[in-house]
């Protein structure tokens, strides 16, 4: 015989929990706008490094442009992953989130959404400018933000799993790259190749479909992995 639990006091709605955590993280970011702008500058600077290192060969730059922009975006998104849970871990709010009455994967999803809005979305918006500077074909000016939007979202989802696994570790920052980058290869491959295909005038549907499917898979599975990882890391 299992004893019955008495009815719980009315719980807050799921949507309220999601929005509250999202709102909180965005508010916090607004207090420190530098944290949002740094990855963006990093993205721009890395994209500038390649022409300087390789030389002003327009043909070559046009060929490597999609790959360079994608690698730069990947590294820029990686830059801000370390801090996703670090602040919450240090001031004890993570404990409160772990013990909240809302399902943890939902809270994690809200934090991931905040991370994407703050680190992925700015890159998506700026990417056509960078693509222009590499003199990519007009078609890729559309393909670039579309693939980056799907790709950076997947990256945030997967990256947050690794961030949860390394939160509270001393050398977590270097480890984070080692954990995330191999997992991010499919996104990089499809993203960069799709932009290349667009630049050479080919169809981009296959790549966009793949990135969309990958993103859907990540949305479904990653929050559960992150939730499990957070509970383990916070012991």
């Amino acid at each position, binding site marked *: 015989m299992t004893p019955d639990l008495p009815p719980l006091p009315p719980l807050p709605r799921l949507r309220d929990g999601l929005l*509250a955590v999202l709102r909180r993280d965005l508010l916090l970011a607004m207090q420190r706008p530098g944290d949002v702008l740094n990855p963006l500058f990093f993205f721009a600077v890395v994209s500038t490094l390649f022409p300087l290192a390789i030389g002003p060969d327009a043909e070559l730059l046009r060929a490597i442009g999609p790959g360079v922009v994608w690698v730069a975006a990947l590294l820029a998104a990686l830059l801000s992953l370390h801090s996703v849970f670090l602040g919450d871990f240090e*001031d004890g709010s993570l404990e409160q989130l772990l013990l909240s009455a809302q399902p943890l994967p939902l809270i994690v999803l809200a934090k991931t959404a905040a991370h994407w809005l703050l680190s992925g979305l700015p890159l998506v918006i700026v990417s056509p400018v960078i693509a222009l500077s590499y003199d990519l074909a007009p078609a890729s000016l559309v393909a670039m933000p579309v693939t980056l939007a799907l790709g950076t979202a997947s990256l945030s989802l997967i990256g947050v799993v690794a961030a949860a696994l390394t939160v509270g570790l001393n050398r977590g920052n270097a480890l984070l790259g080692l954990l995330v980058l191999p997992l991010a290869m499919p996104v990089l491959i499809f993203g960069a190749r799709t932009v290349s295909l667009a630049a050479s005038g080919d169809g981009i549907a296959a790549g966009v479909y793949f990135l969309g499917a990958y993103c859907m898979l990540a949305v479904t599975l990653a929050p559960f992995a992150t939730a499990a990882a957070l509970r383990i890391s916070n*012991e």
Partner: protein
Amino acid sequence: MTALLSASGLGLFRGERRLFGDIGFALNAGNLLLVEGANGSGKTSLLRVIAGLVEPDTGSVRWRGLDVRDHRQSYCASLMWSGHKVGCKQDLTLIENLRCERALRPIAARDQQAVFRRLDLAGLTDLPMRALSAGQQRRVALARLLLGNAELWLLDEPFTNLDAGGEALVNQLVDEHLDAGGACVMASHRGVATDRPIERLSLS
């Protein structure tokens, strides 16, 4: 009758070291469990095990007779945790912090302003938490306890950083919570003043 909160055979290792082993207790509504012990005796770890933050290596914690690992959500909805760290965002104001809190757990139908007045926080609600002293931040943690609608309070060293008035306040709040049919587990190296029955658990 099943106890509100009970545990049996709780044991925890940290690497090589056994922090504690074979801890058991049963706590009914209106009672207080005081976890005592010297620094480093595992008080905080035991409290974290009870809260479900740490998986014990042996034994289990049961809420109304059900293993908390299998009924995490209803257990979490019934408890308030107050740890070493206050658990508020330093860049946000008290009001903003509590606003997020509202969406995360059941909230008592209490007058928020009255709670602030009672805890001497009334003038501070629009300042960022950073501007508050350590003792005032502790009081914010108390405000969260009062506003949360939870039967079980888990308090880890609640007297830290508080002045004499604050300490008296903690005693008073715990008393009221127990009178209202709640239960409390407290880790403290100093006793608590309450008329309600106290169970003691000593870690050595």
